[in-house]
């Protein structure tokens, strides 16, 4: 009898969870209250645990670094030779430098529009790509705010509470960014794949795009401001059936090693 009651309660919770999943407003409101309650406990804990873990990470990285020093030495010599050859491409680098400086200038000119935050965690499920920041609503962060680093775009704020903020990274499968190909009249939608590479969609086979082209945000999706660097084209496959090319993009940011980010206030 007792077990039957428990099963009935479990099924009732299952039904509630189902309606929350389908975004039914009545259930969603009470569910978010319960979630906020839990956030009040885990938020400060995450911020506290984040700090010693960062220290352990620092020690770990240095130890591993020591082991790999010899290997890295040889790699660096090769890299130096390669860099000398790449010196010829200096004008291209200057162009990139200028663009990055513009982003930095933007931050310096309008410091009140940026909120600096530290990354304290990542999504507990590897099905989704999200990072957790140590700043929350109390710092003025609201949902849909873009998150950037000087290297380029990171993602957008999807959830925030008093203590922490969840940011959906652009390689999440639910992320889409409207982008331009820099220096060309080509526009497409950059979608996350859940893996390291991103997929640039809706680029027709006769559109101008080459491997090595840089992508910048168009500002037309209403979330990300115009001109933020997002990634570099690594593969262009025009041999696929259909009218669109298959294009892979490598993001400028390595989302696994992000430490500090900037949240852009709208």
């Amino acid at each position, binding site marked *: 009898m*007792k*077990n039957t009651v*428990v*099963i009935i*309660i*479990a*099924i009732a*919770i*299952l039904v*509630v*969870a*189902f*309606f*929350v*999943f*389908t975004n039914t407003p009545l*259930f*969603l409101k009470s*569910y*978010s209250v*319960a*979630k906020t309650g*839990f*956030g009040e*406990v*885990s*938020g400060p*804990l*995450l911020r506290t*645990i*984040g700090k010693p*873990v*960062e220290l352990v*990470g620092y020690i*770990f*990285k240095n130890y591993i670094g020591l082991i790999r020093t010899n290997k890295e030495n040889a790699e660096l010599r090769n890299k130096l030779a390669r860099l000398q050859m790449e010196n010829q491409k200096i004008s291209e680098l200057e162009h990139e430098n200028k663009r990055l400086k513009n982003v930095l200038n933007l931050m310096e000119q309008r410091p009140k529009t940026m909120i600096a935050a530290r*990354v*304290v*965690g*990542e*999504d*507990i*499920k*590897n*099905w*989704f*790509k*999200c*990072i*957790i920041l140590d700043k929350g609503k109390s710092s003025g962060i609201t949902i849909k705010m873009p998150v950037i680093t000087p290297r380029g775009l990171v993602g957008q704020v*999807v*959830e925030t509470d008093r203590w922490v903020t*969840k940011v*959906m990274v652009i390689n*999440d*499968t*639910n992320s889409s960014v409207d982008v331009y190909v820099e220096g060309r009249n080509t526009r497409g939608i950059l979608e996350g794949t*859940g893996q390291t590479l991103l997929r640039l969609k809706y680029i027709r086979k006769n559109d101008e795009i080459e491997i090595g082209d840089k992508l910048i945000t168009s500002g037309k999706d209403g979330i990300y401001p115009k001109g933020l660097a997002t990634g570099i084209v690594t593969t262009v496959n025009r041999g696929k059936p259909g009218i669109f090319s298959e294009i892979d993009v490598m993001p400028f940011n390595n989302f*696994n*090693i992000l430490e500090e980010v900037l949240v852009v206030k709208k």
Partner: protein
Amino acid sequence: MTKVVVYLIMVLILTTFESAFVNFLPIDFFNPDVGIPFVIYTTFFLGPQAGLITSVVIGLMQEIVSTSPSGSLLFTKVSIFIISVFMRNKIYIDSKYSFSFVCSGAVLVESFLFLALSFLTRGESRDAFNVAFYSIPNAIFTGFLSLFLFSFIGFLNVRYFNRQQ
């Protein structure tokens, strides 16, 4: 009830630690679900009441540190609990190995439930490939982790809880 509270505090710390830990270790390919072993353990060994409380709390807790759609992890955890209640009389967990096997299976079932829920309610799932891709490594790693968790819980029971009785 004391045991359930202790286990839930353990899950809270482990979940938070895991979230902070994956930030610098490249363990993206196999992310263990630290909640599943506790749901299975409490349901099988402490009864349905304890199992229900654990699954609800863990479901909510995991949603705090994930961008998964609201309600999805609560749904999957409670579903795992209900399945475990019905399997209690059919599966006999007599060692850490059988416990690990059950936990791995539960992670696979959880992935399947998430996909089924997505397809049922939205007709599509953009995460489908991702969920399917990671389900087996996650199951293996969770199974591996549950070997240690089972031994640790056993140690706690012998060292502290059983003495109080």
